């Protein structure tokens, strides 16, 4: 299915940067992910949506092994995920994540939040890391807050810092786990604007989000998940114009009539 869609889109059909095969995950007895197959091309922007509890967060958290899975395989940029700590760390150094609740480190200043991973994981010098961090802060529009602490910033600013922190390690893949769900309404757009800018630059992105405007604007592919499985995936046009399954139809009706 995804092969076909990628051909249809006609772009970025070079190579899979993420390959997920037969992925199954259980929380105790609860079957959270059911036989997921998903390939992501390099540079592809994917939006995953679905009702809460549908497994969409769990899916992207499996990609950087924040969640363990019981069956199936995930290959990220040629490296297959196993229990091997070294491999996990290698993948995590190429995959960055932005969380729903920002998860900035409250005891570190903004600039130190950004330079932490470059210095300790990527062995950059303090100077290099700092310069890059300041550039990124400039890009997300909060350079003047560099010496402040996370709790002194608004939610929207914190999430922009979190995005800058994620970019600081020059990742190949960015995972967004509901990045705007914990924000006050007037702050959502400032974060989405940064994400749209990012999408234009050709980085591979997987976003779990309910921001359908964002999906329409930048996504190459939109995936609908329910009850732990992929129900439907399509280009944004077809996804929103002519949903094939009833469940997606119902879901779209619910969120778009809000």
């Amino acid at each position, binding site marked *: 299915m995804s092969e076909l869609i990628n051909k249809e889109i006609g772009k970025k059909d070079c190579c899979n940067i993420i390959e997920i095969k037969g992925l199954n995950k259980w929380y105790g007895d609860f079957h959270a992910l059911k036989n997921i197959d998903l390939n992501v091309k390099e540079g592809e922007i994917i939006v995953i949506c679905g009702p809460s509890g549908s497994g969409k967060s769990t899916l992207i958290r499996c990609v*950087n092994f*924040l969640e363990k899975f019981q069956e199936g395989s995930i290959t990220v940029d040629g490296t297959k995920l196993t229990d091997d700590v070294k491999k996990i*760390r290698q993948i*995590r*150094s190429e*995959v*960055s*994540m932005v*969380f729903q*609740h920002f*998860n*900035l*480190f*409250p*005891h570190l200043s903004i600039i130190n939040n950004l330079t*932490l*991973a470059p210095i*300790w*994981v990527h062995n950059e010098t303090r100077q290099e890391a700092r310069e890059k961090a300041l550039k990124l802060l400039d890009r997300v529009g909060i350079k003047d807050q560099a010496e402040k*602490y*996370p*709790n*002194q910033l608004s939610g929207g600013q914190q999430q922009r810092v979190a995005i800058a*922190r994620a970019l600081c*390690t020059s990742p190949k893949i960015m995972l967004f786990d509901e990045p705007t769900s914990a924000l006050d309404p007037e702050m959502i757009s400032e974060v989405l604007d940064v994400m749209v800018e990012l999408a234009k630059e050709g980085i591979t992105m997987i976003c779990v989000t309910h921001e359908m405007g964002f999906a329409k604007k930048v996504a190459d592919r939109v995936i609908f998940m329910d009850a732990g499985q992929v129900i439907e995936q399509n280009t944004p046009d077809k996804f929103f114009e002519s949903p094939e399954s009833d469940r997606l139809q119902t879901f779209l009706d619910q969120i778009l009539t809000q």
Partner: protein
Amino acid sequence: MAIYPLKETRTPPKSQTKAIAWLKDNLFSSISNAALTFVALYVIYLLLPPILNWTIFDANFDLTADNQSCGREGACWSFINANLKMFIYGFYPKEELWRVNTMFGLIAVLVMFGSLIKKTQYRVHYIIGSFLIYPVVAFVLLYGGLGLEIVETDKWGGLTLTVIVAAIGIIASFPLGILFALGRQSEMRVVRFISVIYIEFVRGVPLITILFMASVVLPLFFSAGMDFDKLLRALIGITLFQTAYIAEVIRGGFQAIPKGQYEAADAAGLSFMQKTILIILPQALKISIPNIVGSFIALFKDTTLLLIIGLFDMLAIVGAASSNSSWLGRETEGYVFVAMVIWVILYSMSRYSKRLEVRFSTEHR
């Protein structure tokens, strides 16, 4: 539709008289509160005059008076003056007291130098260096060697002993406590099992028992020649005891840290050690400061238990000094004095912990 203009901000109204408003708010806000205020005032009225009379108005401040000329109606403060050296240094030889003074003086010098170092990186090196070198210097000064006359540990006593035991107990138990707290959280079953057993065993036993074990039972297991120092045994006992409490306090700090912090550290690719040292510990320790200091204060007070294994801390010295025939019956003065000294030390510790909390606070203020 109506439009409402923004209203200007004003300063709050001034209450009529500040003192009266304060009294009304705090002491007489309700009938039961007013009743409590009067009861408290009555208790103060009953207690305060005799206390003041004994300590000040009827007391003899002539610092050269002896036990007879002092009189019996009030405190005889010359008792403190006459025995001050003993309270501070115990039975340490008089000619060698400069060594103890130098040891305490060095701390002041170290702290002063440290505050001059501005750059964080050098400061960390300086602190670590001090912690490695100072104890050796202090030990040589106190115990002797390298040309200094040996002073056996059973001569150590008084405030000096109290401070040494408390300081070593605090400094040694801190890193050990962190290790056991980590051990209890560990995913390795054996490590976790050992940590839990250790912590729960030690916490289930009073300090007195551990001190007795260390001083009486432990030597039974060693052959006669291997008998090692009584103070050292007490220190090991106290450190082991304190470690268990600190471990539990720090574990509480670990558990207060949101799961998201662990996830963000993992997602960034930090190793377990990096995650623990850079992300989790600083936050956990910050949360735990009040409880850590509380636990240290408890330890400081517990050092008075050293008496029962025959070490003379400051409190025990009072007993020794007042059983001297020329000062019979003056232990009250001694205990009051010791209480004041200990209170000053502990209150400073508690104030210092407040300052630390504020300094490490990164909350929006």
